[in-house]
């Protein structure tokens, strides 16, 4: 039978559901949290330094004006340019990098980015409007359980190649704003606006959409 809540229960509700903090508070909280925990890597990313060695700004989300560097492979750490992107994929895995301080923002796995060049004729109107010379960028972290998107494979649901998170088989079509085309993911990958000048890529704005996996309540 329902009854009035005790004080203990009210205080429990308080701790569970805090009102949203303002932006500066949230930044500070995140900085403390990330700074306090050891850093790590994600599937397909490069090895990272320990948290104690992470320089300021390395855990911040991509900032307008950041350049992009390879996060894996032979060119790890080198700038990603338009010339590095093969038409039609596969995607390049990258980190944002502050050009002023040379800090690579690799202290949070949520900063890993997929950059891909596609035929503009294949893009839907909204995606085409955002592409620069057919080049698009998306978060590499799956919107389902936060696993990394690592594969560029033929879709289980169609005949085109798609981004795939191998953890739980979610697939995303980068031609249509990375919308979900297969698997349990509840929403599209966050998109990252890019700018292109003289073949050099840079970040043109904040992530569009939530980065990372779904959470309850």
């Amino acid at each position, binding site marked *: *039978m*329902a*009854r*009035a*809540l*005790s004080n*203990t*229960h*009210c*205080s*429990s*509700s*308080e701790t*569970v*559901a*805090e*009102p949203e903090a303002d932006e500066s508070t949230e930044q500070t909280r995140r900085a403390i*949290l990330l700074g306090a*925990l*050891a*850093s*790590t*890597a*994600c*599937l*397909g*990313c*490069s*090895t990272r330094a320990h948290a104690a060695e992470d320089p300021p700004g390395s855990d911040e989300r991509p900032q307008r004006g950041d350049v992009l560097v390879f996060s894996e492979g032979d060119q790890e750490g080198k700038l990603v340019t338009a010339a590095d992107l093969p038409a039609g994929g596969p995607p390049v895995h990258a980190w944002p990098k502050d050009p002023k301080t040379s800090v690579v923002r690799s202290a*949070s*796995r*949520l900063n890993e980015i997929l950059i891909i060049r596609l035929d503009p004729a294949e893009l839907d109107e909204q995606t085409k409007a955002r592409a620069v010379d057919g080049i698009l960028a998306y978060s590499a*972290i799956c919107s389902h*359980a*936060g*696993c*990394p998107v*690592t*594969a560029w*494979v033929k879709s*289980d649901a169609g005949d085109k190649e798609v981004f*795939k998170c*191998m*953890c*739980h*088989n979610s697939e995303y079509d980068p031609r249509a704003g990375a919308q979900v085309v*297969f*698997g*349990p993911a*509840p929403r599209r990958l966050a998109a990252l606006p890019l700018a292109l000048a003289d073949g050099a890529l840079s970040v043109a704005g904040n992530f569009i959409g939530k*980065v*990372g*996996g*779904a*959470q*309850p*309540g």
Partner: protein
Amino acid sequence: MKTSITKKQWYLSGFVAFTCLVSTAAIAGPIENYAPVTQQRLENPEPGNWMLYRRTYDGQGYSPLDQINTSNVKNLTPVWTFATGVVEGHEAPPIVNNGVMFVATPMGQVIALNAKTGDEYWRYKRQLPDDLFQLHPTSRGVGLWEDKLYLATTDDHVVALDAKTGKVVWDTKVQDYKKGQYMTLMPLIVDGKVIVGGSGGEFGVRGYVAAFDAKDGKELWRTFTIPGEGEPGHDTWQGDDWKNGGGSAWMTGNYDKDTKTIYWGVGNAAPWPGEMHPGDNLYTSSVLALDPGTGKIKTYHQYHQNDSWDWDEVEAPMLIDLQRDGRNIKSLVHPGRDAIFWVLERTPTKINYVAGWPFVATDVWKGIDAESGKPIVDPDHKPVVGKRVEFCPSLWGGKDWPSAAYSQKTGLVYVPANENFCGGFTGEKIALKPGELWLGTKPEDIGLKAKPGADHFGELQAWDPATGKKVWQHNFPKSQLFGSVTATAGDLVFAGGTNDRNFRAFNAKTGELLWEQKTNSGIMGMPVSYEIDGTQYVAVQSGWGVDAQRIQDALATNNIGIESNVPQGGVIWVFALKK
């Protein structure tokens, strides 16, 4: 600045008041007259309660309740349901203590309910880190001790909650989730110790079992499942392979209260191809016998050596008293992921091999050495680096973690098995990076194939462990079977596990399907049975996800007319006989 703080305080107080106001109508708690859980109660649980992972320390998954039986189960009907609000795989048994139900769900949530009415007492929702890499977003339940309960979280903490209010009593970080360490198991509680094991074999961790003081969360002992330098068994590893050799222990152990020994299943070696970690690789793919007071390893049995197939043997063996070949055997029974139905003998100092036989088709083993109990490998079906190797059964094995059950009335073991699946991959040397998957193959190179012409996949099997004979089998033509089973004294076996969302009851003696009920999603959760005020209930969580969904996706790509369309979303279902 002062104004801003005042404004925030005002806003916060208003928010809290609002929260209390809206919660009043929906919540029945706090819990009054809670029955504290003692060692005596855990060792001799009342028939109407389900306070351990498999109800009793022996891991049999058997309820002595018989009000619901073969003659009346057709009248079973839902009496209440409760939506958890979470998607993904709901794998935990509803834990019941004198009319109070505690349910763990994915995403670190625990819900306390009135087990008779379904009214909510309280909810605990863990705020998981945004950057958590959830390879297995699930939980297999909460352990009980005195007036607290204990949750192992996917961000690798053990949390103690006040059973009456849901308020956090203590929260102990076990290891760093950013290095691939996580937990999904239900803690085993023995004599005031909260005993857990770590997941993360896929990330190249070194496995362990650890105990924490139930009162304050202080770590009491930690035993690594891969022996370090100077420890017995270390010579079964070469070089530094042991440091990242896997052997995670991600399922709840069982306990022999007479010898004060816990039996804990240990997972596969890492990375997958055996040539990347030469040797037998103790104690991977083994069962460990541990002293719960100290964590000391008393003895062990390794089911198969130098694992190369991802065949975790993490489900702890059932403790069953058998009469076999004219003698009484205190046995350990384990239908393995390696496709072998193992019967072992537990003694205070040693585990003896008694018998083993394949319960699904396998091309990996040529036989079992009668003296040592070691299976004999066919090298053509053992994965290697640089070449694709196929093997049967698939990497999910003959039976994965979903639990088998044993009926003390029929003497049979009921196994949720999968037949006609094979798999394979190409081994590849890949450098270990902490926190990243480290499988020894590219994840996209892992395959699961249905055998051509297969007429079914899932099998609910009933075996007599005393004779090694299969007594009955129920086939599922269009689905895997990926859910734990539970037996009752009503001569019933309850099982979900199929992609058609059904919950079923079978005749434990004959295998006849007696009852089925469609639910909201697919059932991976463990069925339980309990009693309140003279009424027997059966409860289970429906909520598809994790590996059942992975197999389903793989089935959908096999062009055998099976789609990947099982809906997700968790609901607790509770059934009783129509009155």
